[in-house]
């Protein structure tokens, strides 16, 4: 029941907030904030109440019939991995409501409606264990996000929104085809139609078909992730989206891709995934290096941060397909920390754009002297992004690299060079935007208490993840262990 609440609260609160906006804008904002915060508290309660031994199985489950004739059920379930990602979802969700408190002044009601419905969709993605329901939630994320970009975005918003929609929709259709194919293959083998995750695990299938179906899933998730070659929607969407949109895109939507790989691609198609792994790992490493190089070349702050996502998610892809405990845990750790550090960077860039009305680094410089707290926070998150030990991102990336070294020394070395590349863009970011002479004589207000609170929470979270990540690692460790055992030949 509590799982259903996690999805229903944002859905209902979204409608309420839209309605409330007619009378009072602040009521609308407070409804949204309280709803997401309530969800966050719920996940915290779930996290606090689980028993360490039970982490390997479902911690909570909810199951109703939907279309029983073809095995479609409304089936939600929660394990350590989805629990942590849900916590991240509502943490970032609450912060992005706070971050758009002043930024959004038009269509406030509809904005919060969309925001909350995206969060509901993401929660659905992390919870669904029926493939039909999963696909439903997967598509539920899209439309509100399209509106978020197309209505409240910046100059080139319609182009970006359409590009985002086409990329994700087309790849989603591939996944739908793969889901249906999988269901039919399963029907042929057992005589039962079922979309249930548990039923479909371990379906016997011909190798060729397995590879095609795996690719259907893989491409859908690789677009979201994004893997290199399929990544070009991301810089446009991130750059044009409003702050909350960028935070949710980078922090959460990308994670649904990685989550899908972990939850579906590896367990459902272990053999195909294993034989595809070298290509996927190479894609990951290429993404790390290429994304970092592109980030280094950008002059638009938001675009720069967007390309860093390509680079960091390359580590996630690498870690997932290296497929050993170290790398898998590192990949999940990177997902969580990247959500926080990149989300924070987007919030900061949004705050800066709000103040000086530009994202061009050529028109910045010397911001430090007028807004030291904002600049200091930017420095902190830039350092997290370049993988400074002691902050969360380092733990994830180091574990991925350590695991990858077992699989391939060359790839691990190249990926380590990617960490070096991160130094280039992160320092460039700090230097050109915040340091140097203040030639344009910017005089801007520093972080206000609301923004300061957001930043402080994120800084504390990253330090905690960097210095004492064990509680988090322990939460998803059993899930990763199970995924690891599914690797063929183990």
């Amino acid at each position, binding site marked *: 029941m509590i799982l259903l609440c996690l999805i229903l609260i944002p859905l209902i609160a979204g409608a309420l907030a839209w309605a409330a906006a007619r009378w009072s804008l602040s009521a609308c904002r407070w409804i949204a904030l309280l709803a997401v915060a309530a969800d966050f508290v719920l996940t915290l309660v779930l996290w606090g109440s689980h028993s360490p031994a039970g982490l390997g199985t479902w911690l909570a489950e909810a199951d109703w019939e939907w279309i029983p004739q073809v095995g479609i059920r409304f089936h939600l379930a929660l394990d350590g991995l989805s629990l942590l990602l849900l916590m991240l979802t509502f943490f970032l969700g609450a912060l992005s409501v706070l971050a758009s408190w002043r930024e959004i002044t038009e269509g406030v009601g509809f904005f919060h409606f969309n925001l909350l419905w995206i969060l509901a969709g993401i929660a659905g993605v992390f919870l669904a264990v029926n493939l039909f329901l999963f696909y439903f939630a997967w598509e539920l994320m899209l439309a509100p996000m399209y509106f978020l970009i197309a209505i409240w975005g910046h100059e080139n918003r319609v182009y970006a929104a359409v*590009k985002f929609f086409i990329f994700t929709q087309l790849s989603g259709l591939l996944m739908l085809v793969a889901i249906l194919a999988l269901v039919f293959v399963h029907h042929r083998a057992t005589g039962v139609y079922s979309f249930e995750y548990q039923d479909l695990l371990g379906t016997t299938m011909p190798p060729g078909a397995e590879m095609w179906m795996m690719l259907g899933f893989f491409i859908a998730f690789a677009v979201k992730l994004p893997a*290199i*070659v399929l*990544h*070009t929607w991301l*810089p446009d969407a991130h750059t044009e989206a409003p702050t909350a949109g960028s935070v949710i895109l980078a922090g959460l939507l990308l994670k649904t891709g990685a989550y899908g790989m972990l939850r579906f691609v590896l367990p459902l198609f272990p053999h195909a995934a294993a034989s595809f792994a070298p290509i996927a790992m190479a894609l990951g490493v290429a993404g790390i290096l290429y994304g970092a*190089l*592109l980030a*280094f*070349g*950008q*002059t638009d702050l938001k675009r720069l941060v967007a390309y860093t996502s390509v680079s960091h998610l390359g580590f996630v892809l690498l870690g997932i397909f290296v497929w050993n*405990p*170290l790398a898998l*845990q*590192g990949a999940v750790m990177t997902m969580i920390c990247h959500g926080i550090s990149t989300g924070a960077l987007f919030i900061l860039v949004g705050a800066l754009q709000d103040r000086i009305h530009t994202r061009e680094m050529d028109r910045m410089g*010397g911001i*430090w*002297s007028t807004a*030291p*707290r904002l600049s*200091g926070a930017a420095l902190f998150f830039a*350092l997290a992004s370049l993988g*400074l*030990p*002691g902050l969360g991102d380092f*733990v994830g990336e*180091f*574990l991925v*690299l*350590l695991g990858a*070294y*077992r699989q391939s020394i060359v790839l*691990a*070395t190249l990926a*380590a*060079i990617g*960490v*070096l590349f991160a*130094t*280039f863009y992160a*320092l*460039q970011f700090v*230097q050109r935007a*915040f*340091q*140097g*002479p*203040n030639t344009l004589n910017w005089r801007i207000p520093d972080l206000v208490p609301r923004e300061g609170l957001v930043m402080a929470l994120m800084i504390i979270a990253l330090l905690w993840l960097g*210095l*004492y*990540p*064990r509680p988090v*690692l*322990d939460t998803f*460790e059993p899930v990763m262990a199970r995924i690891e055992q599914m690797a063929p030949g183990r």
Partner: protein
Amino acid sequence: MLPLLWLVPAIPFAGALTLAVLGPRMREKAAAVIGTGSIAVSAVISLFIAAAFLTAPPAAGAYTQTLWTWIDVGSFRPAIAFYLDALSLVMMTVVTFVSFLIHVYSAEFMRGDEGYSRFFAYMNLFVASMVTLLLADNLLLLYLGWEGVGLCSYLLIGFWYQDPANGLAGRKAFIVTRIGDTAMAVGLFLLFHNLGTLRIQDLMHAAQSQWPVGSAYAIAAAALLLGGAVGKSAQLPLQTWLPDAMAGPTPTSALIHAATMVTAGVYLIARTHVLFALAPPVQFAVAVVGAATLLMAGFSAATQNDIKRVLAYSTISQIGYMFLALGVGAWSAAIFHFMTHAFFKALLFLAAGIVIEALHHEHNIFRMGGLRNELPVAFWTFLIGGCALAGLPLITAGYYSKDLILWSAANSTAGGMGLWAAGMAGVVLTSLYTFRLIFLVFFGRLETAVSHRPGLAMTVPACVLAFLSIVGGFGKLPFEALLATALPQFREAGGGMSEALASAAAGLAFLAGLLAAWYAYLQNPSLARSAAANPAGRLLHRFWFSDWGMDWLYDRVFIRPVVWAASANKADVIDSIYDGLAGAAALCYRLLSATETGKLRWYAAWIAGGSVVTLAIVMWL
């Protein structure tokens, strides 16, 4: 006392945190008290710990303190744990104590700067990272401190951020050292993959028992760690960042050169000496790198005209001596030289800072002169520091440590006369450029008027360090006895040079350099100028002045291609695939819509033609 060990890094860290959070609203005095006070407490604690360690050595000569398990994934369980043995004890004590003196000095030096509290926050973080690095029980924690000092050097070198040149120097320091760090990280992967742990002591035991001498794994691991060490310690070929690091405030330079950062590489090699002993080719490479670096940096130092850059090259050169010692297996000699170097190099920078501040931030030594009587404290302390650096026989600390290294190089099984000769030439060079500096700055005519005289907070630390630069050398024997519990003894090859002969040679080399400097810069100043004026001399001068052209080379070979590639591909070439797809779709749309002319008869013709073709296909195919 020993259980207080964790406080040594924790207090500076807490100080940095306090200053970072509350700093902007803090008055200068409060910031100075917190910044300096935290290091003072840390230094006092480490002195007490040293006393406790010496009076009652822990079992097996080492004390381990585990705070918590950092990461726990399968067999990978690095902890936040500190390991104290004679090696880390010496390093920790010297680092905290010298850092404390530098902090006291900066409390006055930085007065009136708008980033006063920020400066102390960075400095405290710097010390905290360095102490973490020294005390780390596993290589991952060491890596944390390692990156931490890299970060702090970046922050402090670019401290005056409004000048883009400072930012560039800071980034250069961070990136160049991080190139080495990348190699080191790969080394950590290798060690963990093959030996299954990152705890340093376990690693050393495992390596010793599993890898034979000269095994490929040991060579690869040692070479990768060496990569990290040359980056941090500014040795060939990654030394280019250190001279530019002079962009930071002078106390920063003192901290980087004397106590923190550059000696980290020396420490890493000493800490993992087992690996290097298992990889003789790499250990020999360490010695060669050291010898080559000390010579190159010596030539460069003799041509600089910025007082701080001369000192920077002298640091590179002196670290070269430490590498030379490590390479020939004279482990404790290297650490001994680290200690004396920490004293006299901090002293030299502090004295140079007094001079620079007295002359309106003038850095050019040719616009200085005659300051002997104007700034007596600076003169005498600088003279003592300079003598220690050049190795004035029998009196100064630098002489004892350097002499030990030279003798070891000559008598080691791994070394030889070539390395010894390089070291000897280095002594002549060191003495030459040191006294060139002293003669130009403190003797001769008064060139620039003195505008500012140092207060007590600046002179007292300099005097304390001057005292240590002299007496530090007398503790050679107890020092070696102490280090023998942590580091292997130097293995002497038979039939080498006698100690007396080596000492005499070093003394003569010192004298030769001194006389040359005296002749060329004091007695007959036109000589140096005319030497630099003829074409060959000018070319050589420019070559040495620009650090043997290595900056130029790196700029052309690495930096420009990367920057070019990044800016050329700003719009992401992969996106053009999708732009192409979209363009093709748009083209099809335009072609099809062009057929819709509105001409009825054309439509009819299309219908008729289409029917005919369809019929034809149906009938004949």
